[in-house]
Structures are given as structure tokens and as C-alpha cells.
């Protein structure tokens, strides 16, 4: 019988050896294989940068890890032997889109999502907005934000429930270089708490200061898996 997933936020020394294990995963969309026999282990407290051209399968891999897509073949296990769907409260997923309501302010959006994590201690919306470099009292609806500001608010939403596994799909897109560097510094702090980050990007140089490992995908397969040279 499977044990119930722990709900504590602290990642202790007794944490499993692998934060996420992807074992022979393939994902088919009709006859198109977005992922082909991908097998990777992700250790806790590391930052993994996924690279690859458009259509290489980076976003699909993140969505499979997040439990938003079920693999056609193979299996994904998180935090020991849990399926992603069983540990959703421990995963933070940020997509290309902000995944927030245009008609609410940033704080209203975050307050709303914070209340949907029962039993999980969430950061204060104002505090997390300040962390991502936004004014929490800005009296504007999200629909009136610039793309970069939406991206930061989206990151704030993801950080809110202090997830142990952070999945970020193109977090630096639509961001100026300085803002992207601030985000990298914030992610470095996040990783120091022994939390795992898996991010996709086309801007390798921006992510390299926190990249412990660089995984390159090509046509749905793992083309290379190399150690990075993190400086943060």
C-alpha cells in the first residue's frame, strides 16, 4: 500500500535520493512522439537547465513532471515513489503563459491561489511580490501589466506555496537582462534551501550561474547531460 504524501515544506536529510525520476518516458500526441524513451534522475537541491531547439520536447517533459500530461509509456516518480498527481502541492509549475486572472490585481491573484493550498504554509502575497521585484500595492489589474511584470507575478504565484520542486518553462522570456539576472539570484536562494529547480530556456548564458546540470534534448531524446559550472 502506498504511503500518503508528506505535507511538510522542509526538505530534510531523510529526503529521498532523487527528487524526480523519469524512467523510459515517451509521450505521443497522435502519431507524433514529443518525448522518446527519456530517462533522467533529478537530485534534490540542484538546478537543471533544459536546452534544445523548438519542438525538442522541453515543455512536454516539464508538463509530464508536473502531472499535467500523463506519459504514453514509462513512468515518472517524485519524492520517492509518488506519482506527480499525488504530490501537486509540492510542485510549482510556471508556463509560458502567466496562468493568472487578467481581471484581478497581482495581490488578489496570489491571495486567491494561496487559499487553494489547504494545510500548506504559504508565503505572504505581499512578501513574495516584493521578492520578485514588484510593488504589492500597485492598483492595476494583471491585464494592464507588461509581459515582464506578468512573468514576475507568475513566478511569485509559483513560489507562494514554497514548493520543493520548481518547474519553470522559459522563465526569462519577455524579460530584460537585468530583471532576468534578479530572477536568477532569487532562484539561487531558492535552491540553497535544498529545493530542486528544472528550467527550460533558450538563453543559456542567463541560466548558467545556477546550472548544476545542463540537459539537452533533441527530437524528444536526451542528446547530452553535462555538469554545469554554477557561480551562485
Amino acid at each position, binding site marked *: 500500500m502506498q504511503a500518503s504524501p508528506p505535507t511538510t515544506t522542509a526538505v530534510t536529510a531523510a529526503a529521498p535520493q532523487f527528487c524526480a525520476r523519469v524512467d523510459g518516458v515517451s509521450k505521443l500526441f497522435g502519431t507524433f512522439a514529443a518525448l522518446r524513451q527519456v530517462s533522467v534522475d533529478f537530485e534534490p537541491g540542484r538546478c537543471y537547465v533544459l536546452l534544445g531547439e523548438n519542438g525538442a520536447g522541453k515543455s512536454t517533459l516539464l508538463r509530464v513532471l508536473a502531472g*499535467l*500530461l500523463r506519459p504514453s509509456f514509462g513512468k515518472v516518480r517524485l519524492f520517492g515513489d509518488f506519482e506527480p498527481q499525488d504530490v*501537486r*502541492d509540492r510542485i510549482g509549475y510556471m508556463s509560458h503563459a502567466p*496562468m*493568472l486572472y*487578467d*481581471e484581478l490585481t497581482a495581490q488578489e491573484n496570489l491571495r486567491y*491561489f494561496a487559499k487553494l493550498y489547504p494545510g500548506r504554509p504559504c508565503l505572504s502575497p505581499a512578501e513574495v511580490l516584493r521578492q520578485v521585484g514588484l510593488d504589492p500595492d500597485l492598483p492595476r489589474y494583471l491585464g494592464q501589466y507588461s509581459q515582464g511584470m506578468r512573468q514576475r507575478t507568475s513566478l511569485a504565484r509559483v513560489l507562494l506555496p514554497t514548493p520543493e520542486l520548481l518547474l519553470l518553462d522559459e522563465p526569462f522570456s519577455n524579460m530584460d537582462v537585468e530583471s532576468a539576472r534578479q530572477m536568477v539570484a532569487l532562484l539561487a536562494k531558492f535552491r540553497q534551501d535544498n529545493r530542486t529547480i528544472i528550467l527550460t530556456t533558450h538563453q543559456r548564458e542567463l541560466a548558467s550561474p545556477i546550472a548544476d546540470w545542463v540537459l539537452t534534448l533533441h527530437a524528444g531524446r536526451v542528446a547530452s547531460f553535462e555538469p554545469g559550472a554554477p557561480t551562485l
Partner: protein
Amino acid sequence: MTRALWTHLVKDLRIEWRSLDAIISMLFFSGLVVVLFSIAFDPHGEFAQQISGGVLCVATMFASVSALNQAWSREIRHQVMDAQRMVPSPAAELYLAKVIVNFLFVTIVQVILAPFFFIFYNLHVAGQAWLLALVLPLGTWALVGNGVFFAALSMSTRNRELLLSIILFPIFIPALLAMVQATGDIFTGDSDPMLWIKMLVGYDIIFTTVSLLLFDTALHAD
């Protein structure tokens, strides 16, 4: 009421209050149906009593569908639905909140429309008028409960608006029939509408329970 259900409700009401999209479009549409039918049939006397139940139900149904098509539009935009799929709170509460909010919107439209309806159709209720306060909410709940569920199911399809009507209308027919018959009986006072009201209650219980049980599966389908 659980905290998550209340949270979803407050969010949906706040968003609607800021735009009034659903209520305005429903009011316009149902008002148009009532006026057009009154011109087309020139309803007076007994004839008006007979057709008014059907007209009221049709106006409600088409107006509701225009709102139901937009029920999940804010979740589709910017992939908010993915964020909803990632939160650990029960999906059934998200569904229930959407149903309650849309039920409120349709009820508001019915309340605003009612005086005009009575004026245009020169109606005098021959039966027990208070039963309308039972029949209309029950029928509306049947429509909205199914509509929100099937709108969620058709969310990832290309022709979602067309698909919703194709799926929803046949399934809603038993409730529509009961609603039309019951309101007709109340307006004319010819027969007892209780059988139809019981049918509406049964329909609501069955379909709401099934939708609540299946919504999590529908939400997390690839």
C-alpha cells in the same frame, strides 16, 4: 461551505462584478427573445397562458448557453486552468462554485425579466404562483449544472461553443420538458405541476451528483 468553495465563489463574483459581461449579454439575449415572441404570436388570453411557459424556458435556455459558453473562458485564457489543475484543493469545489455563480447570474436575469414578461404576455397566473419560485430555480440549476460540466469537458476542443450546444441540449431535454410543463400548468391552472417538479428535483440530484463525482477526471484529462 468549505474555504476553497468560498474562495472560488468570491473570485468569480469579483471578476464578473468588474465586467458584468455575462449578465449583460444574457439580459440582452433573453429580452430579445421575449419581445420577438410577443410580436410573432400576438399573445393574449388563454393562448398566452399556454405558450408563455415555453417562451420563458427557451429565453432562459438560450441566454444561459451564451453565458455557459464563456463559463471557463477566463480559465482558458493564459492557461489559468493549468494552475487550477496544479492546486491540491478538490476540483469538485471549483465546479460547484462555477455552477453557483452561473446559477446566480441566470436567476438575476430571470428576476429582471419577469415583470417585462408578464407585461408583454398579459399574463395572469391561474395556478399557484409561488410554485414558480420552485420550478424556475430547479430548471435553471439543471441547465447550469450540466452546462458548466460540459463546457469544461469541451474546453480543449476547437469548436467548443458548437460542441456545448450539441451535447447539452439533448441531455437537458427531460429537464426542459418538466420545466415547460410545470410552468404551463402553473400559468393555466389546468393540472397539478407536482409530478413535473418531482422530476426536476430527481434530475437535479442525479446530474449534480454525477458531475461532482466526474469533474476531477474531466479536469485532469490530457
